[in-house]
């Protein structure tokens, strides 16, 4: 068995010369990094897909999962027939609580082109509390008929806790470090006892 380590079939085990340790081969790979071009247009997670007025509309939300607080509603509108993106339209998002009363004004947020993207529109809405919220996304494209209204039911989770609220869990490793040190000390003492014998 010992002989096998030096056979070619056993590759480079014990044969350090066979391993090329030079990182020079990284150079062509690094050169590749300069050759790729990114595109642009942010998306999120798909919330609904609607086809109306000859338009294909995808509604996204971010962050994922949605929590109480600021939520981005992003829309991407394309021509149904050609798939070409529509780059000029109006986006409004209305937020209603589940106990919405028609006499009480609801929150309305206007969308605008997302500066970090090419074709998507973004609207930031505030969901003040965890629970189910009704959102109505309205899209108006000039010369393409009436507005398209897309109702969404969004379940917002509780907001992220602050880190100090989870301090006992965050520091949970420390007792285990203590146990590992205690074990090391016990083993060392046991070895010392063995060698004394």
């Amino acid at each position, binding site marked *: 068995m010992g002989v096998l380590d030096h056979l070619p*079939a056993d590759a480079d085990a014990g044969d350090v010369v066979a391993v090329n340790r030079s990182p020079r081969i990284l150079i062509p790979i690094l050169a590749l990094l300069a050759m790729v071009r990114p595109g642009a*247009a942010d998306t999120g997670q798909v919330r609904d897909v609607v086809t109306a007025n000859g338009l294909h509309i995808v509604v996204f939300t971010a962050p994922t999962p949605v929590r109480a607080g600021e939520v981005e509603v992003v829309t991407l509108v394309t021509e149904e027939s050609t798939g070409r993106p529509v780059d000029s339209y109006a986006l409004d998002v209305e937020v209603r609580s589940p106990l919405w009363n028609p006499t009480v004004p609801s929150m309305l947020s206007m969308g605008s082109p997302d*500066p970090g993207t090419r074709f998507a529109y973004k609207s930031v809405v505030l969901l003040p509390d965890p629970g189910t919220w009704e959102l109505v996304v309205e899209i108006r494209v000039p010369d393409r008929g009436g507005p398209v209204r897309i109702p969404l039911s969004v379940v917002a989770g509780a907001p992220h806790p602050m880190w100090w609220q989870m301090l006992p*869990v965050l520091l949970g490793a420390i007792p285990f470090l203590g146990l590992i040190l205690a074990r090391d000390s016990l083993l060392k003492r046991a070895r010392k006892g063995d060698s004394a014998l």
Partner: protein
Amino acid sequence: MTWLEVLRDSALDSWNVRFWPSCLAILVLVLYVRGFLAARRSTPARFPRWRAWSFIGGVLVILGSIFSPLDELGGYLLSAHMIQHLLLLGVAPPLILLGAPAMPLLRGLPTTIRREWIGPFLMSRFVQGAFHVLVHPITGWVALVLATWVWHVSVMYELALVDPFWHEVEHAFFLTTAFMFWFPVIQPWPSRAVWPRAAMIPYLLLADVQNTVFSAFFAFAPRVIYPTYEQVTPVFGLDPLQDQALAGAIMWVPGSLIFIAPIAWVIRDLLAGRGAAAQRARYGVSVVETEPRTISLDQLANEPLKTRSSGPRRFDLLQVPLLGRLFASRRARHLLRFVMLGLAVVVVLDGFLGPRTASMNLAGVLPWTHWRGIAVILLLIGGNLLCMACPFTLPRTLAGRWLPRKLAFPKQLRSKWLAVGLLVLWLWMYEVLALWDSPSATAWIVVGYFVAAFLVDAFFRGAAFCKYVCPIGQFHFVQSMASPMEVTTRSASVCARCTTQDCIRGSDRIEGCGTGLFVPKKVGNLDCTFCLDCADACPHDNIGISPSPPARDLWFSGVRSSIGRITDRLDVTALLLVLVFGAFANAMGMTAPIIEWQDDLTRRFGFSNHAFVASGLLLVELVVLPIVVSLMLWWIVPRVLGPAPVGSPRLGWLGRCALALVPLGVAMWIVHYQFHFLTSWASIVPVAHRALLDVSGGGLAGWLGDPAWSHACCAPAPDWLLTLEVVILNVGFVVSWAVFLSFARAANPTRTTTDLFCRILPMTVVQAGLLAWGFWIIFQPMQMRGTLLL
């Protein structure tokens, strides 16, 4: 609705099954049952079946008392709360102790953990002394009485009522003190009684007396003791005072029975003439006659390890019914690869032909949400099983049939440097080109992978693509280093007698190991694709997939077959560091503050897109930071810990540091990928639905309806997810720290623990820094946004 129906519906709705207690209970039950079955095989008379049922019943009583409507009702009714306390104080602990849990729980643990980690503590005189004090009858009696009275003082009780945390602390106190109280009564094997058996009669009687006084206080109190119950809505028509009297009666009558019934049991033992020998008698006379009456727990914990040479290992995945046969069959493994090939084809087709929105496309969902989420868990649990099912090995199989494949892989490329470069490229492309958000780019990558695998394996012998090129393979190799499962020999003596070594040389019908690993000398999972060619080639059927001691792959610094000494190889060290730092960089790129920061910088500098900013950030995270940290460790660690015990004295330490950081990297990959999987696993439903509609040309629309897109994203994150992420990162940190401490101890066998602790502080700072980085990431909102190529 009748009141009975209302009660039934309320009861069903009020079950509150919590994640962490459930996990703990499942773990305890699995360990107990595993250990009980092993113990029962060796000493059946000592472990009759009723003991297992008793233990399981005790655990279920605890779960029932804290998950059931009792817990909710306890906030409205003192009587319900007292029933809950009775279950925790007087029912669950004795049932669990009757299960003689010490031995089964210890034997349920993996041998190495029992021997190497639990054993030293059980052997410690301090621990033994403390345990004897805790379960001494006087301590147990006083502790139970104190816990009962103190937690029913108005201030303490109200605190537990209004704050769930203190309610759980109260339950923990009750359970602990109850175990201490019932221990001398039950005297579970292998403990020995401190007092004569007859002393348990006054012990229990006195407990009953204090219980009677306690109960009478509630039953006859002229006013409501706990103000909260005056403010809540009455339930079942009971006013607070009536409820309080009922609570007293419950504690009085059933509570007394809990103390009195065991007295009858003790008297029966004494009358039967068993007296002091009753404990023995309960565990079966035949056993006692042939075996030691008791054994100490440290003896149990230090039961000799089964080594390779001592015979077959206890667990072998290839010998598990059905699953083992599946993995052991060459045809079944090929079938697995063809199934994965089918999925790859689906991903490619949808990637090219489907919608360009990633979360609506199979190429945007299957590889990036599902495959990655399942992969990190499988790699940890089962070793590198994913490479076993890799469809990219099929080109090699085809090439092997049609092409000569005689060339050796170029010597200049025979290292991990190429793979390191490709991994960096991969991580860069993922971030800058937003691969997960571009179905067509994903499809191109899959196609490119097949082409590259075919080209490499068409000309070069062995599994050169897997070993030297494949970035996914390198990811699998390194992640599976944290797994206990590895391909290994079943018996070392069989290998010692073997003269043909077909596992590496191959035979007429099957090639030997493609990555050049000689199984008897192989250690760990690095470079092992779990293809099981070695097992097929072995004429002695002596290769299986078995567990090795936890983290051995990480702390082993000796020579490994086909790899040499990992700690002396700069290329492997670089690979490990890229994957560790890459884990954090990859996860951080998805967080909202980083995306906003990149957008902000892009606008400020007037760039047309965020590629430059993202590339700069990645350069720092994947190249600059690892190099700075490496140089710092390379300079400091040998100075404080001395030269490495084996191998290169300085480079050896850098390799050891990289190995020790692997668990932190693994933890971060798991946290990241599990987050996406657990919050978006249902996305496959509408996406597959959409794909079916597209394939049918809309023909199935009438039957299938519209895809339910709300499934793609919209489940709120489970409450326990953030805690789980913190726990996983903490586990990674603790294992990482333990691995490095073991390296430090090996190099400094005579130093005191305190001294050693101070000397590993530089590395601890690096580990704690990575942990803090991980914590910061998981507390940020995940944007899941990227670049859509339009």
